[in-house]
């Protein structure tokens, strides 16, 4: 979305314009859903996080400064909510049944076939279930969502060194897991 249009939508939303806020939700809900689905490996929980994230954004919109990146702010709220969910006992871990899709994903350098959500969540869950919430968060943000280290520093509040060490450990754990296949 164009930055000027986005800033205009934010300013209007700050003045309680719900139509403007709806446009923001429509534009960013996929991004939040993608991150929360990949972190939580659960469709329903991911949708809950999307809802909670946007409600928090609406409530705290007045404190958002337009000199910051809006997507980074959204990522910060969403990833904090996901981390809380991962740490809590409420989080439902899916049954990790390794299927053909995972084997295909590992062996193929360009898997064309689109996976359904249940297959995707099984794969991500199988690969990342031994990671700590922090390692998982950093791995998803850096390797899958392809965010810059600077942006991850803002989102997680960790130092660059900590991010790199968490990323190294996450990659090592996943690499060891892949050796089995």
């Amino acid at each position, binding site marked *: 979305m164009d930055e000027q249009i986005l800033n205009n939508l934010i300013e209007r939303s700050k003045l309680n314009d719900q139509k403007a806020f709806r446009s923001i939700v429509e534009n960013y809900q996929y991004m939040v859903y993608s991150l929360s689905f990949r972190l939580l490996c659960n469709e329903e929980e991911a949708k809950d996080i999307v*809802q909670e994230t946007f*409600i928090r954004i609406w409530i705290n919109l007045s404190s958002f400064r337009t000199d910051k990146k809006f997507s980074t702010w959204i990522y910060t709220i969403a990833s904090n909510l996901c981390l809380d969910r991962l740490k809590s006992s409420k989080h439902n871990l899916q049954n990790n049944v390794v299927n053909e899709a995972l084997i295909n994903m590992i062996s193929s350098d360009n898997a064309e076939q689109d996976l359904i959500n249940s297959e995707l969540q099984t794969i991500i869950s199988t690969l990342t279930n031994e990671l700590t919430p922090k390692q998982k968060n950093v791995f998803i943000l850096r390797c899958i969502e392809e965010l810059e280290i600077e942006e991850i520093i803002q989102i997680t509040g960790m130092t660059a060194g900590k991010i790199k060490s968490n990323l190294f450990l996450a990659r090592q754990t996943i690499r060891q897991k892949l050796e089995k296949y």
Partner: protein
Amino acid sequence: MENTKLDNTINNLRRQKPELHDATLLTDSIMKQVTLSSNPSKPTFLIWIRTISSSAAVLLLGLLIYQQTNVTEIEADTAPTLLVEHNINIDSECIQNQDYNRTYLLKTYFCHMVSNSIKNQRLQSYYQQLNN
């Protein structure tokens, strides 16, 4: 070899975006909650109740202070009369038990007159005895 496996997997995971099937429903649900959270009726109602009860409390306090001031003024007005009564120093029960109030003022004077007439009679009989 293992790095290739890892990189392949990561690349493929990047391409696979989770599908959001009922996006419009989710948006509607979010907007519904946003409307609920931004509905100012409850806080306004509470603020009104608080304002009204605070004003009532202040008014009552003011009224109480005003009443107290009036009572003190009335007591101050009646004070000389009471002083005279004390100076008479009559140990009559009706005076001792009297409430320092304007309502009982006539009654008090009547008591004084009665007790004075008794004392006068006694004094007269004393003078007569002395003369005799």
